[in-house]
């Protein structure tokens, strides 16, 4: 796995399903800082112009792979709303020549501020991709990395490169080497089939995880992204299950006498917080995954649902009707000191804590409209990002900059015609809302942590 001919100063191994990817820093990489300081806030109003030519390659296989990798990178960057890929028709220098030595004048004149170049070597089912990121104005290399991986992993290489570009140019971690787990919905609404499904964040590599013989709802990723907690109606007993993504094995987690639902992992991955309905109420419990020991965190006759830990694991935000209608509350992770944080107009639900810790995203139902919004953990600074007839279930990308959620359209007639349920994503500043394409209707998205 070493790379002959290169003085390896840094080496990363990205493990995951389908074989590991080795990334090594190329020797010429001096790790210069971008001369123009760009941050996410500035890029929202002024997206970074970047040229992403095809990667060069010797032979048709390598060339095809180089083109596909560049296309995935370009789509990732464009979809983030923070980059503006330069029109490929305008390119002057060929990808082959640029991969050898970029002629910066050629890229400057077409308005590119950043440039990526690369070279692909394909031998058998192995792939080696050399990638460089350039700051066009000062004519400086910002990054040089070589990736070695099974050819089947080429999309992950493209996502890893996209994350490198995002981080080097914006100074924050990206979110492209991630997956979305969600509920695929089909059939009429009174007899809906709901299957758990998973895909890359860009909709590729889609696969179903359950077969639809029982209803699956509300999947959520383990911090390692190798496991999912979800609600299953297996044998018509609604319970929280764990789904192992490597083995496909499912095991019941929340089995204590009634319905268990709305699971979320503790940030340490060793326990799950969930709601359990034993009588007419719903209370919050934490369940240790190893011992299956449960611990009751709330009590009383109210409906306490949708608990979610703060990223440091010390607090839990949840949804309760204890004050009359649905509002958001924050309590300590052992269940004490609950205080209400939502005070705006309407009912509040489905709170999720940003991985950055700075915001809580939620659903608000007000005046017959649903909205997705964010507020600070003390309840201040509330902003509604998107509103419509129905939308709910926000989930943060691992860098806390983008939310995915699901949106529904109303039925036009008594037979349910016109109803739809689709996934969307939106920047937490409330711009760049995009529909996420899925093979069927969809709900309950959950964004994975970075896979590497």
């Amino acid at each position: 796995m070493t790379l002959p001919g290169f003085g390896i100063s840094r080496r990363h191994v990205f493990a995951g399903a389908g074989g590991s990817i080795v990334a090594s820093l190329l020797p010429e990489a001096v790790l210069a800082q971008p001369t123009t300081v760009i941050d996410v806030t500035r890029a929202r109003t002024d997206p970074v112009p970047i040229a992403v030519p095809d990667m060069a390659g010797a032979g048709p296989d390598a060339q095809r792979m180089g083109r596909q990798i560049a296309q995935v990178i370009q789509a990732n960057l464009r979809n983030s709303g923070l980059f503006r890929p330069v029109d490929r028709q305008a390119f002057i220098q060929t990808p082959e020549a640029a991969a050898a030595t970029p002629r910066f004048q050629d890229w400057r004149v077409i308005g590119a501020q950043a440039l990526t170049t690369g070279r692909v070597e394909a031998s058998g089912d192995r792939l080696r991709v050399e990638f460089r990121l350039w700051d066009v104005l000062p004519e400086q290399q910002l990054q040089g990395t070589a990736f070695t991986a099974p050819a089947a992993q080429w999309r992950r290489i493209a996502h890893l490169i996209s994350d490198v570009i995002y981080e080097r140019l914006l100074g924050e971690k990206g979110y492209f080497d991630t997956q979305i787990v969600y509920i695929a919905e089909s059939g009429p609404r009174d007899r809906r089939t709901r299957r758990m499904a998973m895909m890359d964040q860009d909709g590729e590599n889609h696969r179903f995880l359950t077969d639809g013989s029982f209803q699956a709802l509300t999947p959520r990723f383990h911090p390692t992204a190798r496991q999912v907690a979800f609600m299953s109606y297996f044998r018509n007993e609604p319970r929280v299950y764990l789904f192992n993504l490597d083995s496909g094995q499912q095991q019941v987690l929340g089995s204590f006498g009634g319905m268990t639902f709305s699971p979320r992992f503790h940030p340490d991955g060793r326990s799950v917080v969930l709601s359990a309905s034993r009588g007419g109420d719903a209370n919050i419990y934490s369940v240790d995954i190893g011992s299956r020991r449960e611990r009751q965190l709330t009590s009383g006759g109210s409906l306490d649902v949708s608990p979610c830990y703060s990223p440091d694991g010390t607090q839990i935000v949840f949804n309760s009707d204890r004050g009359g209608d649905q509002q958001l509350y924050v309590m300590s992770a052992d269940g004490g000191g609950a205080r209400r944080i939502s005070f705006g107009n309407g009912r509040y639900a489905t709170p999720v804590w940003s991985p950055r810790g700075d915001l809580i995203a939620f659903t608000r139902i007000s005046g017959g409209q649903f909205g997705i919004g964010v507020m600070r953990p003390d309840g201040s600074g509330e902003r509604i990002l998107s509103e419509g007839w129905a939308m709910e279930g926000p989930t943060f990308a691992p860098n806390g900059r983008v939310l995915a959620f699901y949106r529904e359209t109303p039925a036009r007639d008594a037979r349910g015609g016109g109803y739809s349920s689709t996934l969307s994503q939106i920047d937490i500043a409330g711009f760049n809302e995009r529909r996420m394409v899925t093979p069927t209707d969809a709900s309950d998205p959950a964004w994975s942590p970075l896979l590497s």
Partner: protein
Amino acid sequence: MNIKLLGALAALTLLGACGSGTDTAGAAGGGAATTASGPRPGSQEDLVANVGDRVLFDTDRSSVRADQRAILERQAAWLGRYPQVQVAVEGHADERGTREYNLALGQRRANAARDVLVAGGVASARIATISYGKDRPAALGSDETAWAQNRRAVTVVR
């Protein structure tokens, strides 16, 4: 012998439905097996036709409405006549709420209906409860008429 005959009749009914190209949604159990002599006593069809299988709730409420209580009391009396029958009370919510909260609300409605049945003398061991939240509407429209029908607890013979 009678059961065999009923089965044959039901099959004929289904064939007829297929031939006419309509979808009678046999899975819904809406009375496809009825004959001239009426539904089999103690069956779901009997409950639907002669007692009423469901009660409706107000928005975001789970207390049994005064105008719905009599239906549950009739159900309790009916269950008293058929002591071998076991039921599940299925709680539901309309689509104007979030999924997880509506699961809890549906469970609370199922429990409220169950409590009236138990108060009417039905052994609690005979009654299971389950919630489907907003995920199994009875009416498929997106208006107040549909929502009123979907905020419900349905008693289902197991």
